[in-house]
């Protein structure tokens, strides 16, 4: 049960222990964090199973791992290791440019990225049991995560207010089934949790995403790229819990050192944008 918590990217057992001790509700076991993937270029794939298993051995909180979009076998391999969640992730290089993994047949829950309501509902239809914004991973820039969270929540409000006969056309616009849209129309919310991810670089960023309605926060490159990962991780956890206590956020933000430098989204060529992967 990760709700209201922080999920942290880790690259080895030692980082996983720091994350757990700082109060992470889960860790994402990776070979490289997104900012390094971005810097290295080339094809990014599922992590070496050794790293995933090492991390699973040392922490008692859930362990997640990433498979490439559409890479059925990477997901099956992670399932065989017994990870707690699989992230079908645009941070890795997609293996299929048309189809996502059919997640219904897996026993392990999936988390998937979404930047609008159509994507979110298509992933849920395929069997995802947790969503996250795509943001723009590895940039240290929160603007894309904000855009995705606002867009999805705005679209939900719109669907809620449509009349029933307008839902058919909206289902076509969004590229989703009528039934799943009817569920959103009636409940006024997503049937699964939606976390913020991509570009969270400060405690205030995490709190901003909670303020905008995120159910929790993923922090990728931010923590172990900062000067003092332990302190930084604790600060993010506290700011996520107390996202509307600004005095507290001020306190935990003191002397954290330099956050990751960050990249202006406008300087990224369209081909470098990870959020455009997946459909």
């Amino acid at each position, binding site marked *: *049960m990760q709700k209201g*918590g922080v999920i942290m990217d880790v690259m080895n057992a030692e980082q996983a222990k720091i994350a757990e001790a700082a109060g992470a*509700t889960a860790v994402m076991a990776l070979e490289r964090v997104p900012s390094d993937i971005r810097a290295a270029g080339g094809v990014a794939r599922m992590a070496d199973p050794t790293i995933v298993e090492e991390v699973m051995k040392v922490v008692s909180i*859930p362990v997640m791992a990433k498979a490439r979009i559409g890479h059925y076998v990477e997901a099956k391999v992670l399932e065989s290791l017994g990870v*707690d969640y699989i992230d079908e992730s645009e941070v890795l290089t997609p293996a299929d440019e048309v189809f996502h993994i059919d997640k219904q047949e897996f026993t392990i*829950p999936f988390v998937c990225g979404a930047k609008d309501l159509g994507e979110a509902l298509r992933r849920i239809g395929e069997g995802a049991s947790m969503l996250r914004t795509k943001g723009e991973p590895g940039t240290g820039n929160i603007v894309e995560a904000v855009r995705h969270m606002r867009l999805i929540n705005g679209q939900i409000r719109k669907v809620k207010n449509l009349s029933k006969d307008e839902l058919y056309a909206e289902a076509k616009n969004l590229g989703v089934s009528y039934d799943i849209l009817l569920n959103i129309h009636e409940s006024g919310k997503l049937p699964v949790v939606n976390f913020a991810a991509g570009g969270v670089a400060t405690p205030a960023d995490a709190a901003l995403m909670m303020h905008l309605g995120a159910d929790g926060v993923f922090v990728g490159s931010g923590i172990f790229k900062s000067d003092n990962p332990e302190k930084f991780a604790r600060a993010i956890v506290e700011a996520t*819990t107390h996202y509307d206590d600004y005095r507290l956020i001020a306190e935990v933000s003191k002397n954290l050192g330099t956050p990751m430098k960050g990249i202006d989204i406008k300087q990224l060529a369209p081909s470098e944008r990870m959020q455009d992967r997946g459909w």
Partner: protein
Amino acid sequence: MSKVKIGVLALQGAVAEHIRSLELAGADSMAVKRVEQLDELDGLVIPGGESTTIGKLMRKYGFIERIREFHAAGRPLFGTCAGLIVLAKRIEGQEESHLGLMDISVARNAFGRQRESFETDLPIKGIDEPVRAVFIRAPLIREAGANVEVLATYNEEMVTAREGRLLVSSFHPELTDDYRLHEYFAGMVREARSGEAKG
């Protein structure tokens, strides 16, 4: 008699769901993030989440002492999933407990990892029909002291229990529309409050 007010500890976990279930069960409810808020409450739910995260934040903000005082003053506590671990006197494989109030030993993630999560209809003593129970990386009660009453078992393992003004379940009662275990707890809170008024 005015409604009882039952808080939900809101450091991490399934907070909104518990508040909804408590309100359906006829109680007033609120999210509790600061120790001062305990003063206005008749009872407290410690929700499911990650017990390491919740325990860490409870220590940080002084909730351990204040919740022990809250309970010593006659107020009931209800721990679900991670909340059960937080209430237990003994946690297998760990030196330290969190609140350490209930005379039970618990095993974390006793059913295994996330993929071993499941749902079942669980008969619970004191509730007429079985309750829909969602188990997610659930803990189990391995040993229970003489004063602990076991209210439900699953495959002969203890999954719901009560000791005086403490109630625990290893499943998540707040994730379904079945709010009868919350009603049961609201009953405990009402009883505790009326006992206090008389005494």
